[in-house]
């Protein structure tokens, strides 16, 4: 090799644009007169071009699944906690439905366990055999009445509201109700009503108490 070896290092720095303007000018001057260095630089440029002409390879299609299958198995509680963190509303709904379905089914199913109940004050009487609350003629109920799992027959007078859940309201021609009469008979509308009020509470409970971090 006729030219000095240090020139090769200069050529690499030149390619990397890793030299001062002065060094660059000097080397370019040298290249004009030294065909050996000029040839060397051309070969280096060609080498880089060849290496860069390789197309990018891509990971095989099942790559990610392969990695995920090789990860250490997570314990059940971890999965559950993670899932819970990601789906607080679904979880809340699930827990709620479990509790709710239990209570509703016992509430709505006729026969055993769904006795007629009345909330309110006054001189009415309950006919348990027919599941009817009777406000007799001549009696006046001052406040509200809520009847569950039965009907109400008003022959007297009710000054407040009457709410009949899972039952019917019969107003005798002589009877009188001063307030509103509400019948809640549709299971779905009842569920909807209860869900709305319950759900906000349940969701709040779960958002408010983050599960502890595991180590």
């Amino acid at each position, binding site marked *: 090799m006729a030219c000095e070896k240090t020139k090769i290092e200069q050529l690499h720095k030149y390619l990397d644009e890793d030299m001062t303007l002065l060094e660059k000018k000097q080397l370019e001057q040298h290249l004009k007169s030294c065909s050996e260095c000029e040839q060397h630089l051309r070969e280096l440029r060609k080498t880089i071009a060849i290496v860069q002409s390789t197309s*990018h*390879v891509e990971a095989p299609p099942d790559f990610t699944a392969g990695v995920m299958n090789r990860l250490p198995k997570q314990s059940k509680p971890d999965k559950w906690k*993670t899932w819970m963190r990601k789906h607080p509303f679904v979880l809340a709904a699930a827990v709620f439905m479990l509790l709710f379905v239990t209570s509703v089914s016992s509430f709505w199913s006729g026969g055993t366990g769904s006795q007629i109940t009345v909330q309110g004050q006054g001189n009415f009487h309950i006919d348990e055999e027919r599941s009817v609350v009777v406000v007799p003629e001549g009696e006046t109920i001052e406040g509200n009445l809520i009847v569950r799992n039965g009907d109400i027959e008003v022959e007297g007078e009710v000054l407040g509201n009457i709410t009949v859940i899972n039952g019917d309201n019969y107003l005798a021609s002589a009877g009188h109700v001063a307030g509103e009469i509400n019948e809640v008979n549709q299971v779905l509308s009842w569920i909807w009503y209860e869900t709305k009020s319950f759900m906000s509470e349940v969701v709040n409970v779960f958002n408010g108490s983050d599960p502890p971090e595991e180590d």
Partner: protein
Amino acid sequence: MDAVVKKIIMEVKKGDQQAFAELVDLYKDKVYQISYRMLGNVHEAQDVSQEAFLRAYTNLDSYDMNRKFSTWLFRIATNLSIDRIRKKKPDFHLDDPVGGTEDLNYYSQIAADEELPEDKVVQYEMQEWIQNEISELPPKYRSAIILKYLEDLSLKEIGEILNLPVATVKTRIHRGREALRKRLRHS
């Protein structure tokens, strides 16, 4: 990008294993590329690059969130590739009969899946040839050349991945280029 990656990492750290799949999807091609270029064999590349993700997962707590995740991940992949090369018999590829590893090549694997037109075949042969030349480089030059010219990384990043000062990275790139030049000059 960085914010997305950090968010995913936080989720994985909290115990959401499935979130890790998103990280794998983001970086699989680059990690696979590093492994393939280092090893020149699709099966080994897949094995090593999947192992790299596995190591990243199990050592995620030691990852410094203030640094670039890709740098950390590529470092794992590069180290595993170099380990794999060391475990191979040093003269393995010299003694191997011609064609013995052909089916393990990335391009011949693609080519095997479909009938290719003549120009594609030539292109694949060209790609195989370049890969073979890269594989002939000593591993320490090979990694520097791959990270610089195939992953387009800065000298600083390459230095962090290889755990070397930038000056050393420069020297390795120079030597790698020089070695390749000697082989490719007459092509």
